[in-house]
């Protein structure tokens, strides 16, 4: 889906696993809510096909990071780069049209709309009927349960099914990178496992995924790389294996003393 953007060289930093151009990048980004300084000189980069996660406690700026990536929050300084292009002033719709998509926290489906309508809303910015039809089939292939529930209102689905629809909706914009906000939030433990398998599966098909999680153990077990955010600053930036082995990390986030 995104092989064309894999030209070698360019801006890739040392942590990039394949050395290509970053799909999505933060360069020294600062954001403020009024006088409150949220993100402080944050540098991030996501490469094609990667699964990366952003870890951090409450109020560490995880959600703000996502909102800034999507263009719902404008950075006060620094650059947001999408596929080599600085998109600081561009609205959300521009970024969605150019390959960013989001699975919101708690799924947040349009509850009183049908599953089909939810999926079609994911493709809101697209006009190619044939392509939309194709992608619907792709989503049904990924989640056969979704096809059975097309006419049902999404609010009446079970938690697991809702998660499938939320991911399906995000896929419908034919994205290059998928942002996921707390995918394990509000799911039963058994479903959390299933959910991460799902994320891995989508990643295996070549989708770059940027995931914000509190469940650090679980997230790092499937991720390629991870960052740890603390009060708006990136304090750790390493491969998933290294983070899992990091003693500091283990004491602060992995629940070990």
């Amino acid at each position, binding site marked *: 889906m995104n092989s064309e953007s894999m030209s070698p060289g360019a801006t890739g930093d040392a942590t990039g696993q394949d050395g290509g151009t970053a799909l999505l990048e933060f360069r020294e980004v600062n954001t403020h809510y009024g006088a409150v300084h949220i993100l402080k000189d944050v540098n991030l980069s996501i490469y094609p096909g990667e699964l990366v996660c952003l870890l951090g*406690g*409450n109020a560490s700026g995880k959600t703000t990071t996502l909102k800034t990536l*999507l263009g*719902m929050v404008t950075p006060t300084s620094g650059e947001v780069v999408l596929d080599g292009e600085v998109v600081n002033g561009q*609205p*959300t*719709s521009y970024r*969605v*049209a150019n390959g960013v998509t*989001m699975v*919101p926290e708690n799924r*947040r489906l*349009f*509850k*009183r*709309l*049908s599953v089909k*309508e939810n999926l*079609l*809303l*994911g493709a*809101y*910015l697209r006009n190619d009927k044939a392509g939309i039809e194709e992608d619907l089939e792709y989503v049904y292939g990924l989640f056969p*349960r979704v096809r059975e529930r097309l*006419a*049902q*209102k999404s609010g*009446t*689905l*079970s*938690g*697991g*099914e809702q998660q499938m629809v939320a991911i399906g*909706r995000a896929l419908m*914009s034919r994205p290059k990178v998928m942002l996921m906000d707390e995918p*394990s*939030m*509000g*799911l*039963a*433990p*058994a*479903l959390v496992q299933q959910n991460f398998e799902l994320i891995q599966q989508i990643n295996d098909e070549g989708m770059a995924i940027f995931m914000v999680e*509190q*469940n*650090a*153990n*679980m997230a790092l077990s499937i991720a390629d790389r991870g960052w740890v955010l603390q009060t708006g600053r990136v304090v750790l930036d390493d491969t998933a294996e290294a983070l899992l082995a990091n003693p500091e990390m283990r004491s*602060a*986030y*992995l*629940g*070990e003393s």
Partner: protein
Amino acid sequence: MTAVTAPRAVTPALLDQDWRSVGKWGGLCGLAIVLVSLIGMPVGLDSRTLVEGRLSLGYLALVWLPVVFGYVVSKRVVLEGVETPDPGLRDVVAGLCCGIVAGLGPALLILGLDNWNLRKPLVNWSPKLLELLTYDRGIGYGVAAWIITCAVLAALGSMLHVVPASVRRFVSYAVMGALLLSVLESAIVDLSEGFGLESLTDAIYAKRGGLTVTSTIILGVVIGGLSLLTKGRVKSATNRYRQMEGAERQRTSIVLFIVVAAVCVVLPMFLGTIMNELLANVGLFLLLALGLNIVVGLAGILDLGYVAFFAVGGYTTAVLTSSQSPWFHPEWHFGIVLLAVVVMAAITGLVIGAPVIRMRGDYLAIVTLGFGEIIRLLFLSDWLKPYFGGAQGITNVPPVDFGFALVKGTDPRSVFYLVLAFCALAIYVSWRLQASRLGRAWMAIREDEQVAEAMGINTVNTKLMAFVVGAILASFSGAILAAKVGSIFPNSFMILVSIIILVVVIVGGMGNIVGVLVGSVVLIGVLGGPRQPGLLQEFQSFKLLIYGALLVFMMLKRPEGLVPSARRSQELHQEEYLQDAWLKGEDHDQEEAEAQAEAVAHAPAGVEGEGDPS
């Protein structure tokens, strides 16, 4: 939950009641009777006979209360898997006791009326009311009569639970049917005159109004009998229609559409002026409600100043067609004016919409409320008097000349046909929009604005679009109003109009075209609009009270409106099915059961097993 297999087993003792609930409902009923008396309904409506020599509308306004409360107090919520006693004599006792408590209300009122004079604060605290409540036979008789009447009526109401379903159906349909026939007497007489059936109505109704006793009984039995014959037929027919697919459904829809269209076109020919006037008013408000339905129902923007666009449409038409327009009077033809109306409405929609559309919920409601009033006050102001005539408004708006037909206020039938055409257009547009990309975007914004934005929807522009489409529909209604009335005044555009349209949309069912249609017919047609009388002209002065009570009732008991969308009821059905399957522990559908178990497991299973730095 363990007793799933053996519910409804216990029959508790006769007097083993939930006395608190009985007392509460009885007290509420008594209060309601006193309230209805004191707002002047019985006295005001006593002259209107329903059943010759037996029942007047004034008494009906009081006596329906104990029946309904008796029914409610003995109603049991049947929960799957929870033991519920079978309905029996015990429930009738509950109803009886509730009625006795309720009867204390009017009884105390009689004593009060007899002993004190509170006429100053309470206008209807009159000897006339006392006379009416005591049946003019002394205080003691009145007190006893009310307690006994309420007790008996409430017991009858509660008995509806005990009798078999077919008897319940027969009785309720017979009573409701007979009452409806007598309450709607004037409309029915008008209708039968149109069809040349005066002899029939002469036979049914007494000379001085109201059904005769014999005809009441006969009609009641006939209607009750018919209700038994048609039992379940309507439901199965609608279900069959819903399950149809593809070409068959399309064919049926077309046939249904032709039938409805034929009725709409043919019926007015047989109706008199008053009924046609009424239909025209229903149409005008339906057009407004359809527009507001797009704004509130689809896009979820609570616009309380919707009347502004109605006014803009009316004034634009008046200025451009009337010879008496004080400033600019090109006297254009209505057809050309409509284009100007669309432009003006769109501009006003953008001007009002642009600043308010970024606000959320309550703030938006308040600000639109303000704008609605501002527009009216501008038209009323001395400042703009040289342009819009101030309080005198603009008169001499000419009738609409289509060449083959003339639409003027004195011929309400022609107005109705014009309105009908516009309503058909509005219904078509709303229907197409609902299934369109734009409609989906509106609904997405209504459901979750932030996520809608994350999907790439430009929420500001999309909401403005809804505002403008709504404004254009409202302005059409205003244009027709101007041509119908022949003049336009600022006080036709009071805030009340906005509120009544909103009530129509809410009561009918938000976001649902059929619901809005039913809402307009029921509210505007039966009760009447802000200034327009409805079928129940007697209730003219109590209209707003009824609107308010209805709104409160709907919000509490049926927030989805009178006509919930087909989809919604289907899903409710599905949910029930799943729940039943799960409760009964049926494992043949493992996945469904799992889904349910999972839904139940949600709450406690929130965040678990990860370290949150603290």
